[in-house]
């Protein structure tokens, strides 16, 4: 298993000697107000073009999905009846009017007459075991000294392998320049001792930037506070180094199941199975040789 024998600190296992602590995001969705300042700041700082002005009919989310030009994505879920259960709710039925439902007594997020909101600013997870980086054939995707994952645009040849490899649907290939693009965790700003643009712009500190160890401790405290306040649905997503991607460099506090936010509930880095796949492919290549040898030998003269 030496092919994928990797430690918990990605910068160290990528060969960095002395390096800064692993940096990341803790996105506390319980204080997100859906202002999209993060989306705007990201576009501005990274000079990303718009990718369409469509109205998508999904609450205030007209961004839709991550793309080559969209590295932050604020999601909106409208729900009625927050009875404190964690059962996922569909967005409000069109004919359900505000005030028709019983007001919820539990201290859910923004519960007004039974209508509640989930808002969350999604971003690249900068996985400890990053599939995009593993499968990149050119070395364009690399691990920075901060433990983040960044595309070197001048190396990427647009093979597109990272796109279906990502278990979160983050990275995308650009139609205009042919290369793959995603959040860099503002690598340029980090080098200058600055916070990423989205965290800088967030007015409620829903997006917290800092050393990952500190963020994990802070998030743990925040969940406990919310549980004490009766928000039983609060849970962390991606903070555990034991998950299928070895823990996310950008993790979240959610108020419902991950899939309600369009996040995979139990993502696994695809390369975890790669040693088994190579063994199978070698075995099958043996079948090819044997099959041809036997067929030709049996029919020879």
């Amino acid at each position, binding site marked *: 298993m030496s092919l994928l024998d990797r430690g918990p600190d990605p910068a160290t296992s990528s060969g960095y000697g002395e390096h800064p602590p692993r940096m990341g995001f803790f996105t506390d969705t319980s204080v997100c107000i859906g202002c999209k300042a993060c989306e705007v700041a990201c576009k501005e700082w990274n000079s990303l073009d718009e990718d369409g002005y469509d109205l998508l009919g999904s609450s205030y989310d007209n961004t839709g999905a991550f793309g080559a030009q969209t590295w932050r994505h604020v999601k909106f879920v409208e729900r009625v009846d927050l009875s404190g259960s964690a059962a996922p709710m569909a967005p409000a039925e069109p004919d359900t009017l505000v005030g028709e439902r019983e007001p919820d007594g539990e201290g859910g997020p923004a519960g007004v007459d039974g209508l509640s909101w989930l808002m969350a600013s999604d971003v690249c997870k900068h996985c400890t075991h990053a599939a995009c980086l593993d*499968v990149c054939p050119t070395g364009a995707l690399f691990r920075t000294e901060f433990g983040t994952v960044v595309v070197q645009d001048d190396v990427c040849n647009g093979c597109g392998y990272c796109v279906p490899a990502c278990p979160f649907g983050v990275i995308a290939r650009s139609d205009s320049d042919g290369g793959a693009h995603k959040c860099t965790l503002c690598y340029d700003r980090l080098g200058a001792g600055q916070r990423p643009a989205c965290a800088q712009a967030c007015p409620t500190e829903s997006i917290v930037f800092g050393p990952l160890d500190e963020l994990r401790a802070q998030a743990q405290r925040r969940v406990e506070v919310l549980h004490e306040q009766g928000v039983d649905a609060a849970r962390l997503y991606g903070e555990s180094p034991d998950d299928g991607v070895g823990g996310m460099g950008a993790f979240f506090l959610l108020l419902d199941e991950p899939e309600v936010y369009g996040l995979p509930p139990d993502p696994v880095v695809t390369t975890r199975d790669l040693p088994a796949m190579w063994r199978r492919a070698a075995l099958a290549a043996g079948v090819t040789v044997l099959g041809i040898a036997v067929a030709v030998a049996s029919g020879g003269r």
Partner: protein
Amino acid sequence: MVPDAQFASYYGRPVIKEPAWKVPDVPVYLFLGGLAGASAVMAEAAWWRRLPATERVGRYGAAVAAAGGVVALVHDLGRPQRFLNMLRVIKPTSPLSVGSWILAPFSGLAVAAAASRATGVLPPLGRLAGVGAAVLGAPMTTYTAVLLADTAIPAWHEGHRELPFVFSGSSMSAAAGLALLAVPPGEAAPARALAATGAAVELASSQWMTRRMGFVGEPYRSGRAQTLLRTGERLTAAGVAGALVGRGPGPVSRAVRIAGGAALLGASLVTRFGIFAAGPVSARDPRYVVEPQRSGVGRPPVR
């Protein structure tokens, strides 16, 4: 007791991205790469058994298919002018990197072996190139299965145990089909045997794959992918039948043999399109991503 699965999604939108790879570039490459690899192995085996016509068609087939495959792959790149960046590093974690390091020398050797065979220039070196192409030809027939399986696409990833065998079988029957097109009746026996072997390996492993995958394998059993895969199965059956029936030296027999060979080549091609087509379908519907993860499919026991 397992509670009933309750499926929630974000406006029914996909959780993962569809493959960025282009159709027909990539499925065509899957076909050509497999055909080239198996043809190179067949050419070498034919040389040992002194079957000159089979050797010749194998050498030429390997060279032409390999060159065509390289063109298809380069054309698929978002930045084709940078195709040489594929050889910038060697990464065992990237099936595309490993594949590039197989394909580049393979195609060079296959073309060299064919050129030597055609011109009669430097026969010993041509032979050596042929041996090299045969050695690399075997992994050429199966690494592309890892290429698809090493993604987050459920229909591809969850088939990773059987897909290399599907591709091995498909490659063998394609090479057999090519041989049936060109060899004289006296040399058709090996191609016949290879057609039957390839068909058996391919059909058995693809049946096993889609059954074992259950719900995640649904995209193979519906829509376009199913149509393509069924067409592939029928063409395979027709091809093997043609190979078995068309044994004689007469023109009718020859026509049947050639039709069978063409059917086998067509079968391999549409099968690759079918396998590929299931990928985007399973990426588009969040159920294929969320439900298996919820029920713990694909998770190893806790270490």
